[in-house]
C-alpha cells in the first residue's frame, strides 16, 4: 500500500523516490532519531563492559571483594542524585518547550548541581578504594569495576560539560531551532545515562555487594 502511495506521489508531483508519501520527516525527528541510534550503540558498548564485569566479578585474586568495599549508603545517595537530576532535566525540557529562559536556567542549574554531587561522591568512593589498596591493578574484578563504573562517570562528566555549553548557547543565541534540537539530544543523553546507572547499581553494587 505504501508502495502504491509512493508511486502515486512520484507520478503526480515529481517527488524524489527516496521520500515517503508524506514528504521527508522534519529535521527535529531525523536528528533525534539519529541520536537515539547513537545512544543505543553506546548502550551496546556498555553491555560489553557489563559482560566483562559479570565474568570477572569473582576473580578477586585474594584481594578485597565487593562485599568489603561497597557502601550501600553512598550508592543510595548517588542513585538519588542521578534520578532527581533526570527529573529536573525533564523539567528543563518542559521549560524549553514553552521557551521560558528563567526556568530553563533554573532546571539546568539544579540538574548540573545534582550531576556534580553524583560525580563528587563517585570520585570520593574511587579515592577511598585506592587508598585501601583496591586499585585497578589489584585484581581482574577491580579492573572491570573501575572500567565499567569509570566509563559511566566519564559519560556523566561529558554530560555536565555539554549542559554548560548548551546554557551558554541559549544565553548567547536564544531558542533557535538548532539549539532546540541540541537540547532534545542532551535530554535523551542524560536520561539514557540514568538507565545505564540502574543497571550499574543493580549488577555491580547490589548483586556484587551481597
Amino acid at each position, binding site marked *: 500500500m505504501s508502495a502504491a502511495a509512493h508511486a502515486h506521489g512520484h507520478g503526480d508531483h515529481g517527488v524524489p523516490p527516496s521520500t515517503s508519501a508524506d514528504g521527508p520527516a522534519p529535521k527535529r525527528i531525523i536528528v533525534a532519531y539519529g541520536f537515539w541510534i547513537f545512544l543505543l550503540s553506546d548502550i551496546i558498548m556498555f553491555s560489553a563492559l557489563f*559482560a566483562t564485569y559479570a565474568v570477572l566479578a569473582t576473580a578477586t585474586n585474594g584481594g578485597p571483594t565487593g562485599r568489603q568495599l561497597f557502601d550501600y549508603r553512598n550508592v543510595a545517595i548517588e542513585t538519588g542524585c542521578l534520578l532527581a537530576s533526570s527529573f529536573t532535566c525533564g523539567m528543563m525540557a518542559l521549560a524549553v518547550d514553552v521557551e521560558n529562559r528563567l526556568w530553563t536556567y533554573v532546571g539546568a542549574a539544579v540538574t548540573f548541581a545534582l550531576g556534580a554531587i553524583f560525580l563528587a561522591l563517585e570520585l570520593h568512593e574511587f579515592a577511598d578504594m585506592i587508598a585501601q589498596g583496591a586499585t585497578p591493578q589489584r585484581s581482574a574484578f577491580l579492573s572491570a569495576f573501575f572500567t565499567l563504573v569509570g566509563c559511566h562517570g566519564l559519560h556523566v562528566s561529558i554530560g555536565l560539560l555539554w549542559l554548560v555549553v548548551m546554557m551558554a548557547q541559549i544565553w548567547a543565541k536564544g531558542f533557535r531551532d538548532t539549539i532546540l534540537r541540541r537540547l532534545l539530544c542532551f535530554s535523551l543523553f542524560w536520561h539514557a545515562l540514568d538507565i545505564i546507572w*540502574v543497571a550499574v547499581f543493580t549488577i555491580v553494587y547490589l548483586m556484587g555487594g551481597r
Partner: protein
Amino acid sequence: MEAKLHDRAPGDESSGDRRHRTLTGLQAYLIGLVLAVIFTATSFWAASTNLLWAPGIPIGLAVLAVAQMGIHLVFFLHITTGPDNTNNVLALAFGVLIVALVVAGSLWIMANLNANMMPAPELMNMQMQH
C-alpha cells in the same frame, strides 16, 4: 494533519497546544519519578534485608531493574508503543537484541571455559613455575 501521526522524535512530548503539552509532560515526569523511586527503594531494601529468601534475591533485583528501565524509557524518554513511535521502538528492540546476545553469549562461553579448565590449585602451580 495526518503527517503528524507517523513519526515522533524520541524524547518529544505528545503534540497539542503548549499549555496542554506542559501539563501532560509534567504529569508523565512525576509518575515516572514516583515509580522509579519506589522501584529503587525496593531494590535497595531487598539487597540489604534478611527477611527474603537469599537465593531468589538476584532474580528479584534483575526484575526490578528491568522494570525500572522500562519506566525510564516510557516516562522520561517518551518511547511508547504509539503508531508515531514505531521507528524508535524498532531501533530499541534491535539494541536490546544485541545487548542480550553480547551479555548472555559472553557469560555462557566464559562459564563453559571455566568449567572445562583444570582445577584451580593445579593452575596456580603452573603459573608459579613461569
